């Protein structure tokens, strides 16, 4: 059991590309840390640097009190679960799990005990003699987990382990991974681009963008108080509505003068009836589209008084300019073409500087 600490870790490629631009964070003993971000943000590279599969340009990676920058992956006392599982196709499930232990010259009896125990935990006992190709996706995933467990490492590293599974299995395995990690209380770092996985698994959530950390913290804190517009749009599904305060007619009395972007989550907007809540906002929308998913309804509305300029920054994952998403419970709601007014109270509003890089606490 161990802490994993990153101190000003950087990765530059010879062609000048800076993949990781100086990252610091610490994962406490037994904690589950999730690195989340869009593709290309460097989260996988960072994980592979912790694993020792990529070199570190500068900075320090510390696993259990030992700086491992120059240590071979095998000697870092970590275990990794790969996205495509990377099972040895020609070895039985048993040998897949035992291989790493054998290479370390572990006693046969001890290997057998560990493999059978892991197989029992993961319900793989009847399949120990099968080859990976005879297993389903979920079972392969569990073998990959088993291979990590038998090592009893200081830290587990997961590289998008669930992205090859179908939606249903993914949710089931997500819960299993969490339970397993709690039970073994092994420090874990988990990379994903799925913000739902990130929210549900993490003790510590690290939101990354462009090789940098955007925000680190407890997932719910991040949801409640995103530090930048990037985090605001990335965490939470559907994403937060972001409006430029400068170019719109929205007036927020008492807002800090540097406030440039207003954010409001679709679930915090309600369909109201005229009066603007005290200090809050009211948006007049023409309903453009409606999605009813059963438990809730998504209403896409275009703001009535558009000044022509895009009121919303258009980053990936965000709504098209000018469109506002309202999420209401149940299956009721307006019809397409109807005019509605969406309101949100002051305490549900998020304010950011005009460049979106800083949150303003109001």
């Amino acid at each position, binding site marked *: 059991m161990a802490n994993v600490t990153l101190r000003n870790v950087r990765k530059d490629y010879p062609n000048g590309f800076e993949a990781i631009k100086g990252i610091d964070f610490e994962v406490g003993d037994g904690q589950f840390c999730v690195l989340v971000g869009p593709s290309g943000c460097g989260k996988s590279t960072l994980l592979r640097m912790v694993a020792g*599969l990529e070199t570190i340009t500068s900075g320090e990676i510390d696993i259990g009190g030992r700086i491992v920058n120059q240590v071979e992956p095998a000697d870092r006392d970590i275990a990794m679960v790969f996205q495509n599982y990377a099972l*040895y196709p*020609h070895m039985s499930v048993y040998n897949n799990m035992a291989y790493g232990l054998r290479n370390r010259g572990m006693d046969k009896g001890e290997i057998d005990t560990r493999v059978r125990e892991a197989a029992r935990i993961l319900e793989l006992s009847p399949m120990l003699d099968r080859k990976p190709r005879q297993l389903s996706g979920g079972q392969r995933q569990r073998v990959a987990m088993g291979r990590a467990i038998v090592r009893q490492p200081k830290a587990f590293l997961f590289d998008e382990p669930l992205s090859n599974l179908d939606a249903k299995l993914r949710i089931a395995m997500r819960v299993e991974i969490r339970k397993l990690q709690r039970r073994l209380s092994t420090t874990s770092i988990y990379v994903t681009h799925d913000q739902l996985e990130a929210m549900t698994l993490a003790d510590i959530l690290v939101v990354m963008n462009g090789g940098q950390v955007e925000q680190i913290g407890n997932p719910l804190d991040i949801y409640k108080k995103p530090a930048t517009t990037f985090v605001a749009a990335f965490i939470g599904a559907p994403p937060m509505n972001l409006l430029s305060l400068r170019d719109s007619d929205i007036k927020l009395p008492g807002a800090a003068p540097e406030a440039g972007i207003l954010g409001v989550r679709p679930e915090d907007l309600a369909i109201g009836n005229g009066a603007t809540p005290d200090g809050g906002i009211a948006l007049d929308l023409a309903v453009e589209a409606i999605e009813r998913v059963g438990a809730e309804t998504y209403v896409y509305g275009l703001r009535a008084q558009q000044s022509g300029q895009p009121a919303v920054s258009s980053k990936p994952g965000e709504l098209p300019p000018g469109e506002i998403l309202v999420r209401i419970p149940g299956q009721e709601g307006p019809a397409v073409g109807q005019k509605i007014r969406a309101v949100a109270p002051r305490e549900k509003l998020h304010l950011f500087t005009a460049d979106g890089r800083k949150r303003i606490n109001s």
Partner: protein
Amino acid sequence: MVEDEGIQRYIAHAILWIGIAIVAFPVYLAFIASTQDNAVIANGQMSLLPGGHFLETYYQTIFVGTSGSTREPVGMMMFNSLVMSLLIAIGKIAISIISAYAVVYFRFPFRMTIFWLIFITLMLPVEVRIYPTYKIVAQLHLLDSYAGLSLPLIASATATLLFRQFFMTVPDELLEASRIDGAGPFRFFWDTLLPLSRTNMAALFVILFILGWNQYLWPLLVTTRDDMQTIQIGIRKMITTTDALTEWPIVMATAVLAMLPPIFVVVVMQKLFVRGLVETEK
């Protein structure tokens, strides 16, 4: 496939049978000739049914040889051919899988230069470099030896290329998983790459064994001693007799015997061979 009705099916089958007959008839004829008496063949009155000299001819071929030109039993030639083909096939596979491993998995100076050099040798057939090769082999005193027969033919750009392409389809994660599992370069090669290459090696073995078995020009050059000649050379020598009648039953028996090892290899390896050619499962 939809089954054709009636007459069309018979026509298709008839065409196939004709094709088989065209291919198989010379082989059949060779076998028939090997069981006839030489005098019957010589005066052109060979029957299309097996004659009565099967055991006698084959015994003489394998253990005694022709009375004149070759002076050695064909059993000896088959042994020579077998040793040469096995050395070539196994040597080629060993050398090329190792060089492919080096080219794909290691970063060393001039890696790509070396790869292209190997690749370029593809464009140089044996015949082009046969004189310098002969000279080197002669200077190394390897004439009339198994090493001289096989060593110059062992380097193979084709097989190196094939293994390189195969290695490049092996997911990088397998290498990374091996590194985390504490397997060094040698263990990764031995424990993971070799077992994964098994079907490729089998396919290659079939092709290379037959290639080695059918070598003619090179063995003709480097062997002069009778007890080192290969079966292909033997057949040729048996046919061109100067002062005596060609012993056609023995020539034909030798030809039939020369076909057997490649057939054996193909039949035994067929399952693996076909899997090697079509394998997609990684």
